[in-house]
């Protein structure tokens, strides 16, 4: 049996008296594209923040390719191959688009600037941002900012990408392009966990959908199974389609 790329067991997170994650178990294999859905406050972003090292867990374990990641700092996990985006983009606005990319490309301390620049320009071209390389990130539109955050994450050459609401406020045409890129990276072997309230995107992109509600996984199945699951309809989709 192969080791899962990401194995979460009995994960617990509490904020004061509120249990945000209630002994969550989740196993994700290499190359999966998993949708993570649930109502606001269900624990989706908390889960991402723990996996990427931003929050400590109150219990449980997380293993990346068999190695424990709990207790590691975000920068260590980023270098270990766990990349992430944020619900509200965290661009370096006074730096140029290229410099934003180079921060990720040079953070390992060994890659040369020339090699990092070449890779950055390739990724920017892939995301249609090449002509903006020398513009300040502050001048980008919201959608372009989301693309730049994608590109920065890819500079890390990650094994796993955690995407938190990447389609929020994005034009449908750009959303279509983002779908293509996510699918292409996944086809190239990158494991992706996608949080979104955009059910169209989730059901189109993800072969597996995990639903959280009040810190518990209430469904883990295909899009069809999720759509028709009474617990999911009751906790989340019902309110979307009601």
């Amino acid at each position, binding site marked *: 049996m192969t080791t899962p790329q990401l194995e979460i067991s009995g994960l617990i997170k509490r904020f004061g008296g509120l249990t945000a994650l209630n002994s969550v178990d989740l196993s994700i294999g290499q190359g999966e594209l998993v949708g993570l859905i649930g109502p606001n406050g269900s624990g989706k972003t908390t889960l991402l923040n723990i996996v990427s090292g931003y929050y400590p867990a109150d219990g449980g374990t997380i293993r990346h390719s068999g190695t424990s990641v709990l207790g590691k*700092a975000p*920068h260590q996990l980023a270098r270990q191959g766990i990349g992430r985006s*944020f619900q509200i983009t*965290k661009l370096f606005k*006074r730096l140029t688009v290229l410099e934003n990319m180079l*921060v990720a490309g040079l*953070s390992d301390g060994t890659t040369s*600037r020339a090699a990092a620049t070449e890779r950055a320009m390739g990724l920017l071209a892939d995301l249609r941002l090449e002509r903006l390389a020398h513009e300040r990130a502050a001048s980008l539109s919201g959608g372009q900012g989301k693309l730049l955050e994608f590109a920065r994450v890819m500079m890390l050459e990650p094994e796993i990408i955690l995407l938190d609401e990447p389609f929020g406020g994005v034009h449908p045409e750009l959303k279509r392009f983002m779908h293509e890129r996510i699918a292409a990276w996944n086809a190239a072997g990158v494991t992706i966990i996608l949080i979104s309230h955009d059910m169209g995107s989730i059901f189109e992109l993800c072969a597996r959908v995990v639903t959280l509600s009040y810190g518990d996984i209430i469904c883990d199945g295909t899009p069809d199974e999720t759509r028709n699951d009474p617990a999911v309809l009751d906790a989340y989709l019902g309110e979307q389609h009601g």
Partner: protein
Amino acid sequence: MTPQRARTLALGVLLAGFAVLPLLLGDYWIYTLTIGFYYAILAASWALLVGYVGRISFAQAAMAGLGGYASALGVQHLGLPPVLGLGLAVLVSGALGLAIGWLTLRLHGAYLGLTTIAFAEILRITATAEYGLTEGSRGLQVAPLLTGGSRTEYYYLLLGVTAGCLVLMGLLLRSRLGLFFQSIREDEDGAASLGVNVTLWKMVAFAISSAFAGLAGGLYGHFVQLITPSMMSLQEMGIVLAMAVIGGFHNVLFAALGGVALQVLLEALRELGEWRLVAFGLVTLLVLRLMPNGIFGAAVATIAARMRRNGGDE
């Protein structure tokens, strides 16, 4: 002319200008400018921390004072030659900067600022109270760096060290470290998500900035040959802050030029007494409001825009 060439030419003219000034000025103004170079390094070191890393500190003048005392006492009690005393100043101030950086890792904004004020006051009061070692408010006699050195010799020495410090800071800020510093200033969580060790580089930034301040303080002591705890005071820190802000604290060269320019103005307006400081305070407020990149930043931006326009017209 390319922007790169224009920049190189401007720096060459600036350095040549400072190099010929002693031929045109009397001893008093040569002395004033030499003190201006001390402030230039100090203001640039503050700009490196605040403008590039986004970490506020009000302990920069205290770090300079610490460097001054470390070098003076190293020479006096350990028998070090003044040059090695300066090395000790860099090490002591850098090490304390690293410690402050570590202690204030999780602090931001007002909390960080208040904590650095507390550190600065602890240093100043210690220097005042530890009379046996520092001779308190009376001041500590410091060995000269150049035995029998003239004011002109000191001028060129401090000009050279200031230029060297600015080149070093420039190289540092153009390296990957400079990029990491700026990413931390922009968004710490975003920087960490891209593999930047935010904790380490914030501490290193404090250490580097403090080490430069310590060097400046050491040089000042060996030049003036007397140091007192007042060089660590908050009023002195306010002057350094005004110099960096008015010059432009998002660029170490502009901050340094602000240091020299304000020192010259402080002397030229000596007849105004304490009102000079009131005026500088008002100018600092106006610059912060109207020219966030400082007077030199605004001037360079205007010239660059004009050059682009003229280039476009051709």
